[in-house]
């Protein structure tokens, strides 16, 4: 089965879900989410049996990278994240219905819920395509497919001012970064005369390339990409948008959108990093951005009171570690199994597991306490020991405690930086990781050591499929933390 059929299947699945929503008389529209989950499980299985056709001469393959294990891994990230987002969405449906449905006569009591499950499918198709895009045109179109469906999803709760404000902020800043991106693409096209990344890489490494114009194009593209992945100084939208969006969409943004942003970042910065005349300046700029992001993300996370905002700053901090890996491209001539691409991919895989686990617990707790403040986690261990345990594992992994996936993520990044002799960057990274220990473990301490303020002591109800997803994520965090080759092996 050819590689590109997966995107087609996912889009078709999204369309089927929309048609079911429109024409089938369902009593509970959450069944649309079950269709999506089943379909995505099948697609995830199909990921392991795709193949690239032998003949890749046709024009199509100039837009779509043939035979790329990284692309397949990122497609896996996109599919898994969408699956978990649908599970969270089904848990979250009560809030969605309350804050979207118009009280029209004769309307379905859950009107507007079906699209909330169908839209992530189209986002997922865009993310999967983005993982394989190797042409400026296909990168642009895939990126915009993702971004535009995210505009709708972020502003989905149209009776909730917070969600709408988040939507408008995301819209304006997203469109601004698109403007920078296409202007940068226009210049890159002007300099190299091509839209294909392999040809661009070739042209940029020739000695007669116009260095000033190339750096200008890189700066424009870098601004846009820093927006997408949430790197300082272009991170300002992240806390507000994360706080305002519906919780499942926040998880989607913080995992899938970041992962896709980084694979584009990797692909677009590779030609510049391979060019002998540009690599010095490009690395310098990336180093500055990494240091800024690490410091701002980690230090601003410390005083946060709202759990979603805390995770927003934590996602900025993790973007800092990832840019740090990008800025530590190995010195020429040293053979090393761990390239920045491998390290970033591993880190994103680990980040997916631990962040989704945190958001799953948060979505469940949110549905019973109606609050997202850190105080509502006080004494959670006595009330729901399983939820508290899942959250503890997630926080330990985000902080980077050994035996969890997060530890090896940070370890590989630091190793890379040390090998590239980026000592200042390494210092900022260690400082950031130390700050991380404080704010992640603060949550763990309040769950286990303090008593709850609220009089309720009933355990919070978890449905079977959510509990199952949590157990899988916990096992995966430990598995990747004990043997990181489980993930790295998938890449070779």
């Amino acid at each position, binding site marked *: 089965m050819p590689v590109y059929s997966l995107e087609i299947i996912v889009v078709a699945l999204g369309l089927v879900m929309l048609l079911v929503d429109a024409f089938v008389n369902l009593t509970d529209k959450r069944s649309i989410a079950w269709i999506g989950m089943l379909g995505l499980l099948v697609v995830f299985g199909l990921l392991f049996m795709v193949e690239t056709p032998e003949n890749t001469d046709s024009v199509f393959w100039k837009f779509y990278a043939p035979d790329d294990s990284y692309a397949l891994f990122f497609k896996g990230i996109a599919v898994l994240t969408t699956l978990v987002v649908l599970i969270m969405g089904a848990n979250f449906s009560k809030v969605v219905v309350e804050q979207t449905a118009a009280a029209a006569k004769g309307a379905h009591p859950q009107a507007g819920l079906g699209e909330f499950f169908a839209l992530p499918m189209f986002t997922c198709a865009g993310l999967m395509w983005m993982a394989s895009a190797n042409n*400026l*045109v296909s990168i*642009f*179109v895939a990126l*915009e497919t993702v971004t*535009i469906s995210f*505009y*709708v999803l972020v*502003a989905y709760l*149209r*009776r909730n*001012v*917070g969600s*709408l*404000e*988040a*939507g*408008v*902020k995301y*819209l*304006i800043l997203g*469109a*601004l970064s*698109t*403007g*920078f991106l*296409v*202007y940068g*693409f*226009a*210049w890159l*096209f*002007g300099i190299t*005369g*091509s*839209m294909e990344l392999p040809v661009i890489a070739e042209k940029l490494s020739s000695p007669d390339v116009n260095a000033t114009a190339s750096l200008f194009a890189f700066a424009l593209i870098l601004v846009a990409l820093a927006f997408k992945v949430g790197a300082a100084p272009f991170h300002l939208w992240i*806390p*507000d948008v994360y*706080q*305002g969006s519906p919780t499942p969409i926040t998880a989607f943004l913080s995992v899938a959108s970041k992962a896709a942003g980084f694979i584009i970042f990797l692909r677009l910065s590779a030609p510049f990093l391979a060019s002998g005349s540009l690599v010095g300046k490009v690395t310098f700029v990336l180093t500055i951005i990494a240091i800024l992001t690490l410091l701002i993300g980690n230090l601003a996370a410390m005083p946060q009171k709202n759990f979603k905002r805390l995770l927003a700053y934590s996602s900025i901090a993790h973007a800092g570690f990832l840019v740090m890996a990008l800025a530590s491209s190995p010195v020429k001539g040293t053979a090393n199994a761990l390239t920045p691409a491998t390290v970033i991919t591993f880190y994103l895989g680990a980040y997916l597991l631990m962040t989704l686990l945190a958001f799953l617990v948060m979505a469940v707790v949110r549905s019973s306490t109606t609050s997202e403040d850190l105080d509502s986690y006080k004494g959670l261990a006595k009330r729901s020991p399983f939820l508290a345990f899942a959250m503890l594992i997630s926080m330990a992994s985000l902080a980077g405690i050994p035996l969890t996936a997060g530890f090896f993520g940070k370890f590989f990044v630091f190793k890379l930086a040390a090998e590239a002799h980026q000592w200042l960057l390494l210092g900022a990274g260690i400082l950031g990781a130390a700050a991380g220990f404080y704010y992640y473990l603060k949550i763990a301490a309040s769950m286990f050591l303090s008593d709850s303020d609220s009089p309720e002591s009933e355990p919070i109800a978890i449905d079977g499929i959510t509990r199952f997803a949590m157990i899988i994520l916990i096992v995966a965090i430990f598995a990747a933390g004990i043997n990181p080759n489980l993930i790295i092996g998938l890449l070779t």
Partner: protein
Amino acid sequence: METALTLNHFLFVSGVLFAIGLAGVLVRRNLIVIFMCLELMLSAANLTLVAFSRFNVQEGQPDYHGHVLLFFIITVAAAEVAVGLAIIVALFRTKGTTDVSKIDTMKF
């Protein structure tokens, strides 16, 4: 005296267009005007693409790759406007304003 238009003229104009758009986004307070300025930035990119295409002549033909990206940009921008205006209208209905300085529910 005859002066032909060169690539630099086009690049200069599109650069000015981009700068005007960016300045508008940063300075203006009305969401609709900000949105117009964002479209201006995309137009600047389009002009750059056409200029680079026109002046990269191969075998007597302009390099049409730039035009292809341009048409995608126009299409995507239209989709973006459709979604964007809908969100702005929804915000106006709940808050009664499109002034960005009044969009301040979430703070540090």
